[in-house]
């Protein structure tokens, strides 16, 4: 066995996960392309109606010329497969053309700015809720007969199914009417400035309520899945053997935790999808300057190209986050790292 099979097994793990990452991105982008072309109204007429509504009368032939120009600009006049290829190339190289509502700024710039905020919110609340949910979950499983663990279970059971939008609204109501927060809620009117202390405190203050909304729900779901998992690990032979060997309750809890956290890392990758959707809507409700807010503005400004950009980069973002998490797993699980 020795070194060869160890490296070999880890390389296998990474290679297969990378292949899956490529496949997910490809399927996602194809879906995005199909969705964009499946609309009953082609994007150019949307843009024209936008321009028309800004006043100024255009003669019919001018409208046709404008339409032709837009089609060329976005390559809509070429055959479908050409459009598809240029769409994929555009997404991968980052130029999806200018956004409609914030004309001429390119779509990628807008997305880049908001993506940073979303990653901040999502990263912060994912890690926090993962840790809280799992640690409390293990303790609740180890001391499963205590009242607190039963109460926690009951609370999580009622929190878990609630959609992010509903819970965000509940918090929004709570912090606007019951305990009004100074400076209102969310990140309205936040501009990106240089990193100064006041700016950071401001960011944390803006971050607090939306992340609280995400953390509450997702830690409830982690709590439930971990408690179920830890209860089954608790019955495993090696935990039983630890008790028989007279090890302290602390060590036994450590046994259960170490062996239950591993599978929770793999399920973290797949739970990202729910967290991401939740984050988008929570950002919108709390006017947090992330992708969610940008998406709403794109809808209001019927900025089709921006919407498509947000969609493509969300797909890539979630898939790469999941891929990174998959890389972490072999480093932690000795069974893969030190091949049998």
């Amino acid at each position: 066995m020795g070194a060869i099979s160890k490296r070999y097994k880890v390389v296998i793990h990474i290679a297969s996960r990378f292949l899956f990452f490529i496949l997910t991105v490809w399927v996602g982008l194809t879906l995005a392309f199909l969705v964009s072309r499946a609309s009953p109204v082609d994007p150019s007429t949307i843009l024209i109606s936008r321009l028309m509504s800004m006043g100024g009368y255009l003669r019919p032939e001018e409208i046709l010329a404008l339409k032709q120009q837009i089609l060329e600009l976005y390559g809509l006049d070429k055959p479908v497969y050409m459009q598809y290829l240029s769409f994929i190339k555009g997404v991968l190289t980052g130029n999806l053309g200018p956004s409609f509502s914030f004309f001429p700024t390119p779509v990628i710039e807008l997305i880049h700015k908001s993506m940073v905020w979303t990653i901040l919110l999502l990263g912060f609340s994912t890690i926090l809720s993962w840790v809280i949910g799992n640690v409390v979950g293990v303790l609740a499983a180890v001391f499963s007969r205590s009242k607190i663990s039963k109460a926690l279970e009951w609370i999580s059971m009622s929190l878990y199914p609630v959609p992010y939008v509903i819970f965000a609204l509940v918090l929004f109501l709570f912090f606007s009417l019951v305990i009004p927060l100074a400076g209102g809620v969310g990140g309205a009117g936040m501009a990106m400035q240089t990193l100064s202390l006041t700016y950071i405190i401001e960011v944390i203050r803006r971050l607090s309520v939306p992340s609280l909304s995400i953390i509450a729900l997702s830690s409830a779901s982690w709590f439930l899945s971990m408690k179920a998992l830890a209860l089954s690990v608790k019955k495993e032979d090696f935990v039983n053997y630890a008790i028989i060997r007279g090890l302290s309750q602390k060590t036994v809890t450590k046994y259960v935790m170490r062996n239950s956290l591993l599978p929770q890392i793999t399920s973290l990758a797949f739970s990202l999808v729910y967290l991401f959707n939740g984050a988008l809507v929570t950002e919108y409700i709390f006017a947090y300057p992330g992708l969610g807010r940008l998406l709403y503005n794109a809808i209001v400004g019927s900025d089709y190209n921006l919407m498509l950009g947000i969609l493509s980069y969300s797909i890539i973002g979630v898939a790469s986050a999941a891929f990174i998490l998959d890389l972490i797993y072999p480093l932690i699980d000795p069974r893969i790292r030190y091949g049998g």
Partner: protein
Amino acid sequence: MSEFLLEAKNIAKFFGYGFLGRTKFPAVDNVSLTMEDFPKILTIAGESGCGKTTLARVLLGFIKPDRGIVLYKGRNVHKLKRKEKKFFRKEVQAIFQDPYETFNPLRRVDAYLFGTAKYMFGANSKEASTRVEEVLEFVGLSIKEVMGKKPKEFSGGQLQRISIARALLAEPRLIIADEPVSMIDVSLRMNILNMFKDLRERGVSFIYITHDLATAYYISDEIAIMYRGMIVEVGPASEVLLNQYHPYTKALVRSLPEPGKKDEWLKEKVNPPGIEIKEFLVPGCKYADICPNSSDKCRKERPPLFKVGNVKVACWIYQGQFQRP
């Protein structure tokens, strides 16, 4: 019509592990078996993980082998047409290890009995129930005890008998029994093994798969010893088990704990088999690492089955002249 009932030629089945299962290891490696047309009990003995169950599923036509073919009365088992498949199912049946897994826990046990009777003979319900009563009586149970009950309402021993009854309903020529008694209480095993012996008198052949050499000796005419997917020794049961030609068979029989063998059992030094996966990949003889009389030739080249008297042994020490070490 070939003179063999069942013929397996150079069967190999690989299971992948590693990147998309690219690195293959042979769970069953170049195994050949023959069951002549007269009733006999052939035992396939070997430790857990030596590929016995995989071989059984290949013989039953459930898994396609990667190499080699299985012929039943001259016809390839894995390429049967619809009608031939029904004929094959009727003639070859199986009994599994865990009685509680043999039947669907949610369904009534008699559904299988009547289902088999109706399928095999197109019997209407009256004829089917007489056949069912007959086989249940043979295994020592009455229809009253069995009707309308789910698997968890029976003991392990009773369920295993029902499983045998189900197999007998098809009036098979050959029954492949995969560890049929290992989950049954020691004192009740004899009843089931005696049943196999009686059935052989009535013309039913058995392939009995087990890791327990004592029960193998008790009921079988012929025995094949398997090690890491390979048959290392095959021949008449008393010849193989009492004289043991292959070094692995020697180690097995000597390590068998039996009353009266205490001193010998405690003294002799035997080194244990190593890590399973690594040994499957060895090019030469898979027992080479541990075998007391292994040589370079053993490690590099796979020994063929040499004929020594009426026993076939896959070991280089029997190359050329017949000589007992």
